[in-house]
């Protein structure tokens, strides 16, 4: 029987080195999109290849990996990526946020506070925050170079005129280090403030668009806002998770029978940890 053997972490060493160089440059220039030669992977473009290439270039034999998709450890996308890394590296994976040294994520930052030695890797579908207001890549490159972000501000102004607020849910643009406008990937607004002077390193990889960018630890990160229209995170009107009772995490709003709504933690590991802790407390008291 023929057995396929791969290099450690699937990619060849030269490819990993090139990705690490791009990553170092991205860390050196916070918020700047560094082009890189996005490799072919055994998953389709748009399924997290940017994040996966970052993860594969970063992992060492001692690392512990956690992969989440919209906060869930058990989605098909998260499980497939986790298995690929397990099969090609043999490293340990986990569902616990605390245990992980590298967390690859799609569309969420864990609700459990992160340590300074942890690395967040975000999968990014659209790395260019100005793409909605400017279709030309040459023009957006010039706009970043000259820090000409008035079209983005105009889009927010138009939202206020039309809807009375800056009607953007996910992928709300942030200004990094008061210099570069950056798309934080489609995370909810809830997660934006977690970047501000965070101790952990955040890396963003867009495989299809071939860009890597980063927020180094302890960087000034500000969500765009007007003087009289402050940036606001999602408001759940005092609702709490139906499973763990938490009102401190980002909640999914799920339609229920009778036209009502239930709320459930988006971060499954956070929810599970809270439920386990309450069970443990109940056992101790019993």
């Amino acid at each position, binding site marked *: 029987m023929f057995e396929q053997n791969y290099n450690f972490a699937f990619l060849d060493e030269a490819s990993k080195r090139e990705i690490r160089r791009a990553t170092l440059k991205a860390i050196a220039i916070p918020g700047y999109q560094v082009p890189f030669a996005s490799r072919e992977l055994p998953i389709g473009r748009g399924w997290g290849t940017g994040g996966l290439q970052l993860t594969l270039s970063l992992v060492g034999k001692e690392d512990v990996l956690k992969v989440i998709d919209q906060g869930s450890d058990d989605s098909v996308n998260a499980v497939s990526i986790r298995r690929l890394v397990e099969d090609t590296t043999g490293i340990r994976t986990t569902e616990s946020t605390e245990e992980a040294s590298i967390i690859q994520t799609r569309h969420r930052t864990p609700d459990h506070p992160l340590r300074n030695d942890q690395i967040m890797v975000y999968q990014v579908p659209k790395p260019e925050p100005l793409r909605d207001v400017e279709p030309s890549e040459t023009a957006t490159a010039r706009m970043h*170079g000259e820090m*000409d972000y*008035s079209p983005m501000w*105009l889009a927010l*102004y*138009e939202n*206020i*005129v039309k809807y009375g607020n800056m009607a953007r849910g996910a992928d709300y643009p942030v200004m990094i280090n008061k210099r570069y406008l950056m798309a934080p990937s489609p995370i909810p607004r809830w997660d934006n403030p977690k970047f501000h002077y965070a101790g952990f390193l955040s890396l963003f990889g867009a495989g299809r668009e071939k860009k890597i960018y980063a927020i180094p630890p302890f960087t000034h990160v500000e969500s765009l806002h*007007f003087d*009289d229209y402050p940036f606001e995170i999602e408001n759940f009107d005092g609702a709490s998770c139906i499973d763990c009772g938490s009102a401190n995490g980002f909640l999914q709003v799920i339609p229920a029978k009778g036209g009502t709504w239930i709320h459930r933690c988006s971060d499954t590991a956070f929810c599970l940890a809270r439920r386990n802790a309450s069970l443990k407390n109940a056992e101790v008291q019993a």
Partner: protein
Amino acid sequence: MEHLQININDFDDELSPFDGIDHTLTWKDEPLLKVRRLNKKYGSGCMLCESEHGMSEKVNRCPNCATVWAMRNVSFDLYPGEILGIVGESGSGKSTLVKSLYFDEVVDQGEAYLQAYEKQDTNIFELSNQQKRFVRNHLMGMVYQNPLLGLRMNVSSSGNIAEKLLAADHRHVGFMRARASELLNQVEIPISRMDEAPKRFSGGMQQRVQISKALANRPPLLLLDEVTTGLDLSVQAKVLDLIRRLQRQLGVAMLVVSHDLGVIRMLADRTMVMRNGRVIEQGMTDQILEDPQHAYTQLLVHSLL
């Protein structure tokens, strides 16, 4: 929207002098804009047309290398609060001149000095892109012949004005709405329509929105490129009245490009006649129109009626 209606008087300090603009200057004796020997050519040029007297002033196309000289040694001064009319036939270089001053076109040679800019002694064509953007957004306003060039047709009228304010680092929605209301009121566009996109406006209204956008940051210099072309006579008269009134109220200097001598007669204090990319005559408007010296100007004036 009701929640967004705010009075401009609440924001007296918002339009205080921006960084980089010296508002203390007394400009009366000094030109606001000095332009010297501007050249713009389309083509590589050759020994014949590059030399000072190589080409006849009757043509702008080099017979040897077919290079077209859109501007040839154009020099003039514009004083604060003055309206300088630029007149000439199609292809004479009028629009190229104002577009070059607004950095829409890149000039090949020449200098321009803007007294209102902190770096008065620096040729504005040699500024960095950021500095040019600063000059465009803070010190100049431009009204194009075609509103498509000057407006975002799918963005609200107030948004078009806000764009200019945002580019000048204003970040207060209430102030921007109040300023937009004030400007649209000045150009007689109903405030109830300030959140409508200009694509739903008539040509005259679009031109008026363009004028209000150009005035958003109270620039000392306004560039107007054939603003009344394509408008019917009654709308033309309204727009011209508006420009004249704004110039008297705000004291803004204007460079008015037109091939219509009626427009120039009505607006301009001084007039410059261009032909084949060259300035062939300039002087007080009355003098140019009543007593033209150059043969071409005589032809132009006499062909009026």
